[in-house]
């Protein structure tokens, strides 16, 4: 079973977690100032890299907290996990 390291609870089995999509996507401060294209990009456009990907996970059957993880989308290997609100660790890959 895939083990995910929750920044709060430590190493836990994958089935306690839910995927939360790409991380570090800030909601525009003033959505009404955006064009339709810019708003659509915010809503739907994702980087979808082959390789290291920063993404949100939620420890839903544990502490319930969202956190961020950098995962290799090729090997499914979790390189690092860190608390929500912290900057993406500088470990290469697409930003």
């Amino acid at each position, binding site marked *: *079973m895939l083990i995910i390291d929750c920044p*709060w*609870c*430590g190493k*836990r*089995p994958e*089935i*306690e977690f839910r995927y939360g999509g790409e991380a570090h996507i800030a909601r525009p401060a003033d959505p009404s100032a955006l064009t339709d294209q810019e708003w659509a990009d915010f809503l739907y456009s994702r980087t979808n890299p082959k390789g290291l990907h920063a993404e949100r996970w939620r420890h839903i*059957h*544990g*502490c*319930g*907290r969202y956190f961020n993880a950098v995962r290799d989308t090729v090997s499914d290997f979790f390189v690092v996990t860190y608390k929500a609100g912290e900057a993406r660790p500088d470990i290469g890959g697409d930003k």
Partner: protein
Amino acid sequence: MLERSMPTPVAANPLDALAASSRPVEAARLTALGPAARLAFRGREAAISPAGDAFGVALPREACRSHQAEGRFALWLGPDEWLLIVPGAEPAPIFAAIEAATAGMPRSLVDVSARSVGIEIAGAKAAFVLNQGCPLDLSLDAFPVGMCTRTVFHKAEIVLVRLAPDIFHIDVWRSFAPYVWELLEEGRRELA
């Protein structure tokens, strides 16, 4: 006009019938626990220690740890979330005490006494039976006495606490309780 009275939601334990017909297994004894006061407390930093003072047990700040004193249990569920359990007690006075002590502070306090029921599994094979459906490492190194966490048992979410090396308490949502109980029974069928 028909007179209708509201049914009391906490009157019946959904495990009553199952527990009555349960087979005794010394290595993994199953017990349906009686009613308890349960409060879900969430709060910002300022409210945490006053809430613990009012409850009578300091709220644990270390992840996945529980504190207990005089029959009161404070379980860490998240960095700002605790489950407070007092077996056999009325929730109202405890609720009022914590609410008064944290008045005006950013916090949330909810009486969830009727939401879940408790199950005790005790005996030398208790961890073995739990591991039939719970993927956590329940060795004493990884899951010491006093550790508590929300986790899963088969498809149901449970709160698991280790009170002694071979005593675990499970807190499970009321409607999932028969499911968890019967799978625990299934897990201990192979034991004498």
